[in-house]
């Protein structure tokens, strides 16, 4: 019995090592496998693309560091796309750590440290970083990755082009309150600046004033609550991205009632969005590892099933002989 256990343990070790190498090597040596775009991700892209320039939109950062590998690439692409289309971005968080996640994304896209954003707010000024608008920076430095760039929007000003309103507990109740008045729900932004003094909030009173709502959701509260309240009660267009685990649960909401206008599921969804934008970003780079890992898992599932089948067959023969 113990020899069987030892054998199983070694088999597992071999599987772990192969999986580890299968994930690690494509990160170092890029393969460049293509990703097909699904209709659900196309819908998200079209929503951003077709929203008129000058619209104010809301992105809810409903995740924490544990799900960053899946959701941060989506956040980068969405904010980048929204800014490119001339949208103003309001960030909120239904998860406490979402505030930092939003800051992280704005910081990466504007090349402006969060400390500077906060300092600008306290001094009542807005500031842009010193780099030129055309600066393009590789977000991940895989040496032979093809043109891995997302534009940095160094011209974007805090309080005018984007704002981080911070975290509010309550989930559905908070969203419902935002449907009545965003100013009353978030009297101050994440840095303590009164929301009324921010130019981006001048024309925004309630959820209905927004072009669309995107939720980057790792669970509850998240995208589901935005669908239930923002869309089903206030008729605001809702879309977003989720972790791969929860993605299948959102597919029924993409229906003729337009409860959900497309969804990005996990790293694959983020990579598809990058492909639609013609960007080779952080998600696309990781998709090689993802694909290799899936092939390895499929092979091992097949081996495991063959092994189980042969063992069962041998046991049956043994029992027939007996």
């Amino acid at each position, binding site marked *: 019995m113990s020899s069987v256990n030892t054998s199983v343990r070694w088999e597992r070790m071999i599987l772990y090592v192969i999986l580890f190498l299968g*994930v690690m090597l494509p*990160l*170092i040596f890029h393969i460049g496998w293509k990703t097909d775009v699904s209709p659900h991700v196309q819908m998200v892209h079209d929503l951003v693309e077709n929203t008129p320039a000058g619209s104010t939109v809301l992105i809810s950062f409903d995740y924490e560091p544990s*799900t960053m*590998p899946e959701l941060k690439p989506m956040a980068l692409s969405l904010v980048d796309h929204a800014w490119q289309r001339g949208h103003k971005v309001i960030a909120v968080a239904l998860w406490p750590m979402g505030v930092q996640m939003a800051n992280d994304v704005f910081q990466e896209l504007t090349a402006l440290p969060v400390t500077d954003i906060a300092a600008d707010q306290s001094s009542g000024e807005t500031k842009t970083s010193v780099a030129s608008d055309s600066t393009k920076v590789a977000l*991940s430095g895989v040496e032979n990755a093809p043109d891995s760039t997302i534009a940095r929007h160094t011209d974007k000003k805090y309080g005018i082009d984007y704002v981080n309103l911070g975290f509010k507990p309550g989930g559905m109740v908070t969203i419902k309150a935002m449907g009545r008045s965003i100013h009353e729900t978030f009297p101050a932004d994440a840095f303590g600046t009164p929301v009324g003094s921010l130019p981006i909030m001048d024309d925004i009173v309630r959820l209905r004033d927004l072009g669309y709502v995107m939720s980057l959701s790792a669970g509850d509260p998240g995208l589901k609550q935005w669908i239930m309240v923002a869309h089903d*009660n206030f008729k605001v267009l809702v879309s977003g991205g989720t972790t791969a685990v929860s993605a299948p649960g959102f597919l029924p909401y993409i*229906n003729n*009632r337009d409860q959900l206008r497309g969804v990005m599921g996990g790293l694959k969804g983020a990579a598809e969005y990058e492909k639609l934008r013609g960007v080779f970003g952080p998600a696309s780079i990781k998709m090689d590892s993802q694909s290799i890992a899936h092939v390895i*898992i499929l092979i091992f599932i097949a081996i495991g099933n063959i092994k189980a089948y042969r063992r069962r067959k041998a046991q049956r023969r043994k029992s027939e002989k007996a």
Partner: protein
Amino acid sequence: MAEIMTIIGIWIGVFLTFSIFSFLYRDNPFYRFAEQVFVGLSAAYGFIYIIYNVLVPNLFTPVLSDFNQNWLLIIPGVLGVLMLVRIYPPAEWISRYPLAVVIGTSAGISLLFYLKSDFMNQIAATMINPFETPNVSAISGGLLIIIGTICGVYFFYFSKRQEGVFAIPSRIGIWFLMVSFGASFGYTVMARISLLIGRIEFLLTDWLHIIK
């Protein structure tokens, strides 16, 4: 100084990452240490965060700065304090009142929203004409939605023994459920691999500097 702190932070991250990975071999003190650190830090972070980002801006500051306008906030504040009396067994019963308020309001609010979004709208979304468009893929998709929904719901109908003809939709329902479980499993594998990619990327980028 900041750079040294960053380097120390990265090394701590690397140590904790390998400590957690060590569970793949077997349970060991390194894994337990990392697990306990994670639980303790999460609880402490959450506690402090709630005080400074929920209680202070939403309760203490409004009440202390303008009591006349915000005196109503005292009521949820007191209910919150009453929750804490659970730690004193003789007065534990008092905590049931704030708990009742929380459960009652949550259930009431959720019921309305879920009824509208998950029940009414989902049923309405299934009432489609599959032959609306001449597209073969759209027609087959619409038919699958209708058949899948009816058979899936029928599978959970337990008031009549499902045998003979009555067992057929139930069996079809099982097939639809199995396909959805398979899709969920596939997505779950993708999610877990994504997290592994995130950790390995951290090791290769921040620690080993193999990729920039």
